[in-house]
């Protein structure tokens, strides 16, 4: 593992992405123990302060410290995006593997079911779910997670289909293993690389989607800060407090760039054959 990490860090995309992602995760982790100010602390006398020494990123219209809100918001973004990826992998991969192992009508039916889900962008599912159950972080997770399912199902099916005719799978079948065991012991480990890369990309997308849902009020609800909601609150104050809009946006962009670089890097490191082809 250390050997892999050392090789990986020589890849520029991976190294940059890893450092950025690690910093965001660290920031979120630290926020559980310490933030410069309490994010629920309203200090009207210190409202709308520009970035400076006492408040690194300034304060918002309630006098809340924006740096602290970014830290706690990171926690929220990561949690939503991560659980959404877990839903996608947890349901999508078994469905894709099952479809490829059984083939025939079941395969066709499962993949067509995927097409149906694909017609519901996360935003639309979120709209429907919110219309019924009301807004909240859990509903945002479900909406983004549902959208992740077909992505992973397609990927897993495609990868599994290319693995089934391989010699080592044949050998496993000849040894008397059934399809379920082969899938768990041989198919899934061999597509792990692809899944890890896709998971990183889905994670990055999830962060943007969560911010979007929170921005329109369908995501995390007050008083918990979230990057998307901070942008929503900033909108009416753009003309006199632009830092309120610029900082949370930068937090999103930096995090997503970090994750995308990490994904690109991982792809190159995990599959050296691709490096020459891609660049």
């Amino acid at each position: 593992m250390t050997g892999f990490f050392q090789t990986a860090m020589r890849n520029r995309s991976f190294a940059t992405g890893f450092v950025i992602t690690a910093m965001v995760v660290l920031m979120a982790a630290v926020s559980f123990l310490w933030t410069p100010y309490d994010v629920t602390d309203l200090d009207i006398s210190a409202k709308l302060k520009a970035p400076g020494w006492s408040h690194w990123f300034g304060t918002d219209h309630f006098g809340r410290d924006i740096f602290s809100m970014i830290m706690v918001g990171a926690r929220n973004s990561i949690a939503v995006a991560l659980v959404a990826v877990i839903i996608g992998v947890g349901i999508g991969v078994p469905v894709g593997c099952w479809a490829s192992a059984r083939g025939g009508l079941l395969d066709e039916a499962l993949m067509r079911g995927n097409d149906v889900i694909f017609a519901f962008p996360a935003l639309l599912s979120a709209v429907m779910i919110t219309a019924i159950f009301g807004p909240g972080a859990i509903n945002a997770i479900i909406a983004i997670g549902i959208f992740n399912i077909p992505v992973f199902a397609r990927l897993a099916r495609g990868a599994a289909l290319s693995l089934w005719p391989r010699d080592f799978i044949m050998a496993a079948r000849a040894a008397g293993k059934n399809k379920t065991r082969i899938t768990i012991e041989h198919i899934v480990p061999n597509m792990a690389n692809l899944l890890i890369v896709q998971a990183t990309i889905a994670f990055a997308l999830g962060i943007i989607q969560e911010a979007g849902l929170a921005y329109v009020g369908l995501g995390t609800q007050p008083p918990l800060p979230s990057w998307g909601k901070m942008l929503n609150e900033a909108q009416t104050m753009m003309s006199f407090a632009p830092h309120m809009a610029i900082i949370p946006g930068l937090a999103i962009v930096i995090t997503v760039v970090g994750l995308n670089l990490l994904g690109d890097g991982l792809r190159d490191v995990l599959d050296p054959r691709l490096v020459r082809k891609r660049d």
Partner: protein
Amino acid sequence: MIMFLIRKILWATATLAVASVLVFATLEIIPGDPAQVMLGINATDEAIAALRQDLGLNKPVLERYFSWIFGMLQGDFGNSYTYSVPVNELVADRITISLPLALLSLLLSTVIAIPLGLYSASRRGSLADTSIMALSQVGIAIPNFWLALLLVYFLAIWLQLVPAGGFPGWDAGFVVALKSLLLPTISLALPQAAILSRITRSALLETLGEDYIRTARAKGLSTGATIWKHGMRNAMIPVLTILGLQFAYLLAGTIIIENVFYLPGLGRLVFQAISLRDLIVVESVVMMLVATIIVINLIVDLAYLWVDPRLRHRSA
């Protein structure tokens, strides 16, 4: 080819049917009585009973589903509870903003991304290529509504070149109306252009590695002519797929962007409907958007036939 066409159309129809059941069922599983939900907790029993009658909630589920479907097929989306007008009137009014917005964004994104992607691929490894790809890496990460806020700040508040929001209506004059769609269009288009340029670049690079490209070069064709005549067309398949997907995203994306710019389009309608608990409007607009996405995907599938003649001769 005919088989391919029929198969695709049948699948699209089936997908539509399943999607409609999903949308319908989601509103069926609503906890409690939809009429109660729509009217709020202070509603009287008589008001709830009247609305139940109005919505046809006393009829069996299947009957309601089919009357909803057949109604929509005939352009009857039911009545909005809060606006007291037919939903299709509301939609017809709002779509004159959302659809042009989505189409303009798609156009802008394509016009920017495809030339950039092609240029990048043809100058692979050059400074221009690296810069374009670095820029697109950042572009992908920018949420469109944040870009929208920045554009409003710099172009509308600072430089006062364009309105910060609102829509005067197409009656106010084509140019005036178009001007208020300018920032929303750019905000939607640029992040999509970043993705599209990367796809175009990698698709062209993939095809440029093929044998027939070497043959074309060997027979003396110039780089430009090779890319134009042989590379482009073959690289178009993945690009088309992404274009189809992007239109779906743009259409859904208008929901958020319309809220940034206070544009009275479908997106605003949906959000107002959510806060007013006007479920009929939510149901109809979601179904319409989903149907559009399915139809677009069908069109993309059919466009493959046009781009790739090999597919025309395959039976299924």
